[in-house]
């Protein structure tokens, strides 16, 4: 049996979702954003809600997500995606509304909107792609940057406090990595809070299940924010090749941001 005999429509087991347009992603090679876009589109297609979904894209690398999804989209000001999603969901309660944000958008400038949307318990799905750096603007330090991680604005590595000596010992400097997902899991307004990754097939499958649950909860009318954090890479600004960046992610990001469900059906998961 030759390859040409196998490549026939009846033998197809996997292809890109029909809810993605044919426009090539502008993301860097190996960027997790593409994988997250793909699995969101697959989930929406499987749930059959593509024609009544409204996404809200952020400011950041994913700012042009509306070009790639074949669903309705709104573009929010920097950090305000949950606020825009709140408005859309309140006007159209029967639509499926999701926001898609990066860490600079959701955990830095949009912290206020994130926390208050989660505190109000809006019935929306929030997708949070955390790569620990400001990707689009050239790799500056984000609140989620790991301690010791070198970025454009912390060339000697992020330091929580100023180094010892010259009387500066213990004075706050860059602060600690912000665990926004654990933070909002404590709020009664959140229904489902989880952290996933997309660097290998097993974790992509888990992340897809989590995103599916987040959308199903919203469709089933369980009020409360469904929040999925995806720990992703930024190989361009981490200055690594894509495969090396995924390895670095496993060794450095995952100990700081452990994967798994944090809150399921409104109850914190005991660990």
């Amino acid at each position: 049996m030759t390859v040409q005999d196998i490549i026939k429509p009846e033998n197809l087991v996997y292809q890109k979702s029909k809810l993605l347009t044919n426009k090539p992603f502008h993301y860097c090679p190996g960027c997790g954003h593409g994988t997250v876009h793909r699995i969101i589109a697959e989930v929406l297609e499987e749930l059959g809600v593509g024609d009544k979904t409204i996404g809200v894209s952020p400011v950041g690398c994913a700012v042009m997500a509306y070009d790639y999804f074949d669903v309705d989209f709104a573009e929010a000001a920097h950090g305000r995606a949950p606020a825009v999603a709140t408005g859309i969901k309140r006007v159209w309660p029967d639509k499926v509304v999701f926001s898609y944000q990066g860490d600079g958008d959701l955990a830095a400038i949009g912290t206020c909107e994130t926390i208050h949307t989660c505190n109000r318990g809006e019935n929306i799905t929030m997708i949070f792609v955390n790569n620990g750096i400001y990707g689009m603007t050239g790799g500056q330090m984000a609140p989620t940057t790991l301690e010791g991680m070198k970025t454009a604005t912390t060339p000697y590595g992020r330091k929580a406090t100023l180094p010892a000596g010259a009387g500066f010992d213990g004075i706050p400097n860059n602060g600690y990595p912000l665990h926004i997902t654990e933070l909002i899991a404590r709020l009664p307004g959140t229904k489902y809070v989880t952290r996933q990754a997309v660097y290998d097939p097993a974790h992509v499958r888990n992340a897809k299940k989590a995103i599916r649950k987040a959308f199903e909860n919203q469709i089933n009318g369980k009020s409360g924010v469904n929040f999925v954090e995806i720990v992703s890479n930024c190989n361009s600004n981490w200055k690594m090749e894509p495969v090396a960046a995924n390895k670095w992610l496993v060794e450095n990001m995952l100990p700081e941001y452990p994967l798994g469900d944090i809150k399921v059906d409104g109850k914190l998961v005991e660990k």
Partner: protein
Amino acid sequence: MASFKGAISVDIERCKGCGVCVVNCPMNVISLAKEVNGKGYNYAYMAEPDKCIGCASCGIVCPDGVISVYKAKL
């Protein structure tokens, strides 16, 4: 002898040659080509088509969704 045989088709012009599919292929079927596509990326291709089992691991990790996976019963 496996009772299934797989094959992939890569959308060469959209492939960015990141190599994530290469390391995630359990049967080491995929390699990056020596040739480049229109954008100058070494695209992924089936270097050893006989070994492919059609597991779709490459398809589900591909960040650009360029890989379609086919699987046929022998």
